[in-house]
């Protein structure tokens, strides 16, 4: 078995402000140019990373500005690996299990207004891993090219 070859990689560091997340989104789009993904698949990759970065700002940093978020993306022969690192409050692994949004209730009152981010990340990505070590949290998301065909 051969080790997948690295074709491209990109890193961007931002501070914890929602408007800054757009820089990470632009980096994901740039990186995805090396994947052969179509426009929808590129959007999905950007969406998953943006959702994860939004969650870091909202939950790990509790909305406080000025904290570091580092994005690293790597394109291999058969997959794209998208990773975010922060030094905020670690995520509870139990919270990483998403449930599908309820859209079949008695009316609009039952519809979810938030907490769709994790569901989207897991729906889009083939692998989602979370780790915390030495005060750094890392979320790693993998999308295989074969799942976009």
């Amino acid at each position: 078995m051969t080790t997948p070859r690295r074709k491209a990689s990109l890193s961007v560091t931002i501070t914890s402000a929602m408007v800054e997340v757009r820089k990470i989104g632009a980096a994901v789009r740039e990186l995805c140019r090396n994947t052969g993904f179509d426009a929808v698949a590129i959007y999905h990759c950007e969406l998953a990373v943006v959702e994860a970065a939004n969650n870091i700002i909202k939950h790990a940093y509790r909305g406080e500005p000025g904290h570091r978020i580092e994005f690293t993306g790597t394109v291999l022969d058969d997959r794209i690996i998208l990773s975010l690192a922060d030094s905020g409050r670690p995520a509870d692994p139990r919270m990483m299990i998403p449930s599908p949004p309820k859209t079949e209730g008695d009316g609009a009152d039952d519809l979810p207004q938030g907490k769709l981010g994790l569901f989207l990340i897991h729906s889009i990505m083939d692998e989602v891993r979370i780790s915390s070590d030495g005060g750094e949290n890392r979320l790693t998301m993998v999308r295989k090219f074969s799942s976009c065909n």
Partner: protein
Amino acid sequence: MIATTEKVDGVLIVVLNEDRLDAAVTPLMDLLIEQWLREGHRYVVMDFSAVDFMDSTGLGCLVMFLKKLGDGGKLALCGVSVKIMSLFKLTRMDRIFQIHGSREEAVAHLGVPSQAVER
């Protein structure tokens, strides 16, 4: 300005000018929605033609609008790109929102009562 509006035959037409409906703009969007509700608009078409990216906070903003309109109002969307449509489908919100191909079609499907047209 993130959106421009006009009233046509009792329907508030909202044309979104931002290419991204994300967490950076949804606080402003929430304020606009509150303003439209205060002004008494109950039949609304939102034109997404300019929107190239939307995340779950943008979607949550629309859900909030739908909830606040309640049974006395209607919201329809048009100009939704294939990318944004995929978000509605992933979250199953395509079953909830009225999404139409054109502004005219969206207005027609709202079925505005005549008393609302006269306002």
